């Protein structure tokens, strides 16, 4: 017999929250938060804005670049940043992290993206630490335990658990299952795994059973709240997109 979805059975779980401000209402001062996105795509713009409006203090923010959390820098909410891009990808763009960093208000840890991703995955997968060849012989290896495996020298990297993850998906259901749209997927699935509480901003909320179970990218076990967002302002989206080839 072929498996069939019994549509008469309705799920008892409902993770849908009615507003972005309600979704971030309990994030405390000093929390470690991961924010998804690579450029504008995949950034939970409305959740980050709602958190900035609460003017929490002392956050440690884990994200690709300042692009994901500009509003949190402006609200003075950030005291530490763990990021691969401690400026915009375009080095000529004004860097919002520079002044708070120079004044000692924000600490910055710069690390390779792949290592950051794997540290998040490790946290989500119950692996406390792992050896990685990336960064050997560079500033990245500073103060880290090293070990050789065959011909490859490696550094010990530790899992990076998050208190909260703010992520962006295309569609989500009440069970917390998520699908993404094109390159908006990026870091969002791994941020979801790494956090104690994952909050997903989605373009569309659907009934459980409407997403193709074989196409679900992030299963609901990793997602605690689902909230409908709105498309970010067009000028914010376009500011980061380079239509012309970059000058070097």
């Amino acid at each position, binding site marked *: 017999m072929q498996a069939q979805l019994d549509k008469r059975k309705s799920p008892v779980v409902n993770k849908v929250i009615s507003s972005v401000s309600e979704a971030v209402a309990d994030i405390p001062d000093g929390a470690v938060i991961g924010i998804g996105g690579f450029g504008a795509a995949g950034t939970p713009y409305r959740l980050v804005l709602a958190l900035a409006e609460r003017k929490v203090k002392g956050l440690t923010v884990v994200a690709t670049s300042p692009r994901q959390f500009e509003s949190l820098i402006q609200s003075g909410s950030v005291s530490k940043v763990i990021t691969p891009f401690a400026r915009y990808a375009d080095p000529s763009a004004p860097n919002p992290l520079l002044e708070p960093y120079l004044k000692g208000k924000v600490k*910055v840890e710069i690390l390779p993206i792949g290592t950051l991703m794997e540290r998040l995955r490790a946290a989500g997968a119950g692996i406390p630490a792992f050896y990685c060849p990336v960064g050997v012989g560079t500033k990245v290896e500073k103060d880290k335990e090293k070990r050789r495996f065959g011909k490859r020298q490696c550094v010990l990297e530790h899992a990076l658990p998050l208190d909260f993850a703010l992520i962006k998906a295309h569609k989500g259901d009440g069970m917390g299952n998520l699908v993404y749209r094109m390159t908006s997927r990026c870091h969002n699935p791994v941020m979801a795994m790494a956090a104690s509480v994952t909050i997903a901003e989605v373009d569309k909320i659907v009934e459980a059973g409407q997403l193709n179970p074989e196409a679900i990218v992030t299963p609901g076990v990793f997602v605690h709240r689902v909230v409908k967002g709105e498309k970010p302002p067009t000028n914010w989206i376009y500011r980061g997109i380079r239509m012309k080839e970059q000058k070097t």
Partner: protein
Amino acid sequence: MNLQPAGLSKDLICLRAAKELKPGMYVNLGIGLPTQVANFAPKGVILHSQNGVLGFGPIASEEEMDWELVNAGAQPITLAPGISFFSSIDAFAMMRGRHLDVAILGAYQVSEGGDLANWRMEGEVLGAIGGSMDLAYGAKRIIIVCEHTDRNGKPRIVKRCTLPLTGKGVVNTIITSLCLIEVTETGLELRELAPGVTADYVQKLTEPKLIMSSKVKEMEF
């Protein structure tokens, strides 16, 4: 009289680099000048971008662009038959796990021993490692494309990098506005010269002593 050869334009550097790519190769192009290699890459080269996309089409026009379809350099790209999307975990497994045949990266400095510095500029306080270290340690072959000298006219090819490193001993080939150099176990070997450029001239603008290959020839496009 001070006659200096102009050397290759950025387009010609990219055109020469594109000749290293063959159909069926999986290739990552770094942010900046390397992304322009895509304009000259032969058909059938499969481009990888670290934000989770493989096999994408050319840069999108303003009419075609979709803000959720971009490469790692934030340029809008296009859908092509066979394109796939995946999370950053898979994107970096492809890099670190040696699944990519070639990565073409930019450089502030490259050393005699193939060390690469490309994440913090001279005088910069913070900087951007991005995915460059993951590529430097992961791709099977690293090709550098850059101007031969920096904006102050100082050599980019140096005995020892003074800027913070992206990777130690990771570079295989350097293609500059003046020449093509292979990093070998015995040092930097000059293989090709841009049209009108002499080996003496390249050596003057290069800090370490170059090995003059018996095979040195004029660059072809």
